[in-house]
């Protein structure tokens, strides 16, 4: 079990600090009436960090813990789909996606072999026909 809200807030604080640090190198405004490119993101980041700290203080007695399986599912989907996209950029959508779908269905608990196979072949073909052939949005290349 881990405190998910705290983890998100920690990430957002790190993001806010990065914004403030990076904005230091931005140039000045071109006009004396303008606030320049740095002021707004800096201000937003500072307010965000302040609100996070206030919220953490107010909710200090009700920390919400969630199971690690949540992290596992998110990483599995992120990693799996990311990996499939990476391979598809080299081999092409139509070649990679049927295998990716079949693996995805199997890993997410679908054991109907025939249905899985039919879906894995037909659905990417349908998507390719719709986007690539009918709408002329090229997708075979990634």
């Amino acid at each position, binding site marked *: 079990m881990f405190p998910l*809200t705290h983890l*998100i807030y920690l990430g957002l604080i790190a993001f806010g600090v990065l914004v403030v640090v990076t904005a230091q190198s931005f140039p000045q*405004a071109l006009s004396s009436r*303008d606030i320049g490119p740095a002021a707004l993101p800096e201000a937003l980041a500072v307010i965000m960090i302040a609100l996070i700290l206030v919220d953490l203080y107010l909710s200090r007695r009700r920390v919400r813990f969630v199971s690690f399986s949540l992290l596992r599912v*998110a990483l599995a*989907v*992120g990693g799996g789909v990311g990996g499939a996209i990476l391979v598809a950029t080299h081999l092409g959508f139509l070649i990679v996606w049927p295998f990716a779908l079949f693996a995805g269905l199997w890993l*997410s608990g679908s054991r109907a072999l025939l249905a899985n196979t039919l879906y894995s072949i037909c659905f990417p073909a349908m998507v390719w026909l719709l986007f690539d052939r009918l709408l002329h949005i090229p997708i075979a290349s*990634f």
Partner: protein
Amino acid sequence: MIEGILAGTALLTQPTVLLGLFIGVTIGMAFGALPGLDATSGTALLVAATYALSTEVALAVLIGLYTAATYAGSITAITIGVPGTPASAATVLDGYPMTKAGKLDRALSISIVTSVVGGMAGTVVLMFFSLPLAEFALNFGAPEYFALGVLGVAIIASLVRGMVLAGFVVALFGLILTTVGVDPFTGYPRFTYGNMNLLEGIPYIPALVGLFAVSEAITLLYTKGGERQVAGMPRFWAFNLPLSTVRQIARATTIGSVVGSVLGALPAIGAAAANWVGYNEARRFARNPEAYGQGSEEGLAAAESSNNSTISTSLVPLLAFGIPGSATAAVLLGAMLLHGVTPGPSLFVSNAGLVYFLFLTLGLANLIMLFYGIVGVGFWVRLVQMPTPFIVMTILTLSVVGAYSVRSNVFDVYLALGLGVLGFFIRQAGMSVVPIVLAIVLGTLIEENFRRSLISSNEGGMIFFNRPLALGILVLALITFVIPLARMGVEKRRKSAGVSQRANTASNLE
């Protein structure tokens, strides 16, 4: 007005537009009936597919999808007792008991007819409200638009139930994301870290796809989609609505339609809240309020008419001011911008035909939906039972292709995936991704109008105080921020007072 209606009709009656609307309603019925998908994630998934279509066809597809998906959530609510979308939560109360009592055909018939009545009522309200509001908004300048943008984000953020501060935190995160890319006033690339893909900023469509669709797919996978046992299966021709029932539900349908139309026009209220308020108001004025919640036909009519009447009126802020009042309106705004259409008061002047086209499309989408609700409703009910892994893989595939297709850029797919994982964590923590999306859509408008106001004025920041309308809207935004916090403080104090009172009573008893 007559000219506008004629121009809108000419656009709508093109065969490709009608075909697009028909396809949009069909996909919307499927998305709404599938548990986990709703009008917002469905629209986000389909935006990219409409990229290559003409503006009118694209809007017809998306409006058809939005309308039908909001209705079709009730199919799930009535057949399995689980709302297919948040907008049909109150529908479960009477729809599911009717199914268990063997009145599935009647429940589905009431649901479709009252949904269409509500949808039509909302469209009429949209037509009559957005025109005068847009005329009024023509006088707005940069300070007013800045203030409106801030108010839009503040309202959405304040509505994150039980986590007001978290709502504002994620909204601020979204606003910071919109500062990525070339600065519109100095041309300096901000937060790009040498990555050329970020020069144009965080692209809308991949962000919408990631935050709504990918995060939904991961959530479905994590929760396994829940139990989905259909309590009954309708016949292919299941329409069963005698005149006596129509007379009986007329009052509840009227109340639901009026409540939904009014609430829908208010930013951020949405179909989910209207569903409950419409239901409660109809019960308050009902001849037999005790029957509500136990398979009441009137209760079902009130719930269904109220949520569908918000579909059209939720577009009032978008069309009149160019500010989306709901998550789906934000997605529609993204779609319109993608096709070079900027909604707002100037659209009524520059392209009135398109505005009337939108009104008419909403009306016709309801009629096509009525056809689907009468003929072949059994097909949509069967779709409810689709196994979760297939739904998840369908969403993920469409997300990947949708994120890629707008710029033909793999970076956008990784961005959608990353934001999807982040969105999943945010949802699981009990927060909402809607404020981030609204902030991403409104962020550029807020910054540009803020800085334009400062540059064009001699009085610096005082310009916002010297313009009464801008000041009024900003004060409203401040109140929107303060009131939920104050309410939270009062509730906390009441709770702790209750605890100490119980402790005192316990010690007295000892």
